[in-house]
């Protein structure tokens, strides 16, 4: 556990001494700021319009503002995740520091957990930026904080799963660009798989749609804590980290 902490601190440090963390935080703050402003504008516009027509049906901040925004965050996350994970192992392999880690008296799994937790923490830090925007909704409105909290939990689980996959891909190459590109491809695929459910209802379509990370985010964005979706993400996390461990082990047998 102490070793996980050592690796974790080293990874967090290296995110913040290089421009990586600042770049991701800035980009995300800008993009999400735009989404927020846009969604809020539309929300207010719809509200005014319905009032002018005299048919004042109740508008729900959680349903009509926060929920689409959470979905937006989850999609923007797909673009950030490759940038978070691509250097984790690829960089160590390129500079040869992997030899230091592999010949130190620590277990592979401790290295993997330390790195993955650092990646998850950076993503959580990025999510924290959105709390600033949402804070305004609490100031001027009265949204349900529990639904929002469940939404955040879903985002973290979803990112945890994709970050585990990204960590695995990073062990496969010395080249950060390749690691990033491949991770991006896989993330994108896991997103769009969900589209088949729009017109197909065959078993295959259901399987494909089940594999999509977006399908399982639905319930979280509604503020529902569905155990089957949580289990899906946790399973993917375990699977990704397991593959990473196997891949690290095979480095030794092949290299």
């Amino acid at each position, binding site marked *: 556990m102490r*070793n996980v902490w050592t690796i974790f601190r080293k990874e967090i440090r290296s995110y913040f001494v290089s421009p990586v963390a600042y770049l991701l935080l800035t980009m995300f703050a800008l993009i999400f700021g735009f989404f927020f402003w846009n969604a809020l504008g539309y929300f207010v516009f719809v509200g005014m319009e319905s009032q002018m027509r005299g048919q004042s049906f109740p508008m729900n901040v959680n349903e009509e503002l926060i929920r689409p925004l959470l979905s937006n965050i989850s999609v923007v996350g797909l673009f950030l995740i490759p940038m978070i994970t691509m250097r984790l192992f690829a960089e160590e392999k390129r500079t040869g520091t992997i030899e230091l880690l592999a010949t130190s008296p620590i277990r592979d799994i401790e290295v993997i957990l330390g790195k993955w937790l650092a990646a998850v923490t950076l993503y959580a830090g990025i999510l924290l930026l959105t709390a600033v925007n949402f804070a305004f909704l609490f100031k001027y409105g009265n949204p349900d904080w529990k639904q929002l909290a469940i939404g955040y939990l879903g985002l973290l689980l979803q990112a945890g799963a994709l970050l585990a996959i990204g960590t695995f891909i990073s062990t496969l190459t010395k080249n950060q660009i390749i690691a990033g590109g491949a991770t991006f491809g896989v993330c994108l695929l896991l997103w769009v798989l969900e589209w088949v459910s729009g017109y197909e209802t065959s078993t295959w379509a259901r399987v494909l749609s089940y594999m999509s990370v977006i399908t399982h985010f639905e319930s979280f964005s509604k503020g529902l804590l569905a155990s089957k979706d949580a289990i899906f993400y946790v399973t993917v996390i375990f699977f990704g980290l397991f593959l990473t461990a196997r891949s690290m082990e095979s480095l030794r047998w092949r290299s």
Partner: protein
Amino acid sequence: MITVTELTKKYARHTAVDHISFEVSRGQIVGFLGPNGAGKTTTMRVLTCFLPPTSGRATVAGFDVLEQPLEAKKRIGYLPETPPLYPEMRTDEYLAFVGKLKGLSGAELTKRIDYVFERCAIADVKSKLLGKLSKGYRQRVGLAQTIIHNPEVLILDEPTAGLDPKQINDTRDLIKSLAGDHTIILSTHILPEVEQTCQQVIIINKGKLVATDSVNNLQNRARGAESLLVEVAGRNGDLDSATVKGRLERISGVTRVSFKDQRQNRSTFEVESRKDSFVRGDLARAVVESGWDLNELRPTAMSLEEIFLQLTGEAAQAPPKEEAVPAGASR
């Protein structure tokens, strides 16, 4: 301290290390010698538990590298060919990080960091980024990293590669000074380095063990007979080499005299004698009594370089020296 038995490491297509066995006892500096691609790095990677052996056994400080890697790793300090440095870390941060990886903490860690700063003379780059250090300092920080947890065994892969002559000397001195507390294996393809730093040498070539012995024994073994270099000068005017050669050949104990060179009135000969006969006194007397001057008389020990080429049987394809035949010249 280190035992290697019938160690073999195969990669997909070729065998990098082929049934090597050797032993290293406590407190020794052992030179691991071989041309590039001989299997030095592979053997070291097996010893450091980085690569598992295909067959055979290796134990370090009594722990099998395959069965108890964590225990073995605690007792090993390893410097790979390129020091494993994180360019974005400061020297002190880096050493603290490595110290923690190796299981140190708290006051002990601080103490060891101070110790290695002093020992490796890197205190003046304490708060510099590793990426900005010169090659010499990088190497020294690399060495500091290997001794931070005071391991029993140090494994150094080409520790002087790419350094300038002064840095090479400093690094060698540092390694020699570490020998008291640690057992050291260092690999190199530079022969004088072994002669200067190591007590024992293990020579491998193409994955096979060629020789393992102490540096002195190896030199003796390859020499067999004693050989002397003699320079004789005539007192006035010319010197007839053939006469001198004839006179030298008549000294008892001398087995062979070969003429090497003549410059004006000075001639050099290589005189070989039986190992146990002490011909130097007779030789000097003979020269002086014949009315010549004895300018030089010294034993020509075979250098490790010659031994190495002899043992690895690569004399024909030895790499050309710096000042060898200029490009374009043909014989």
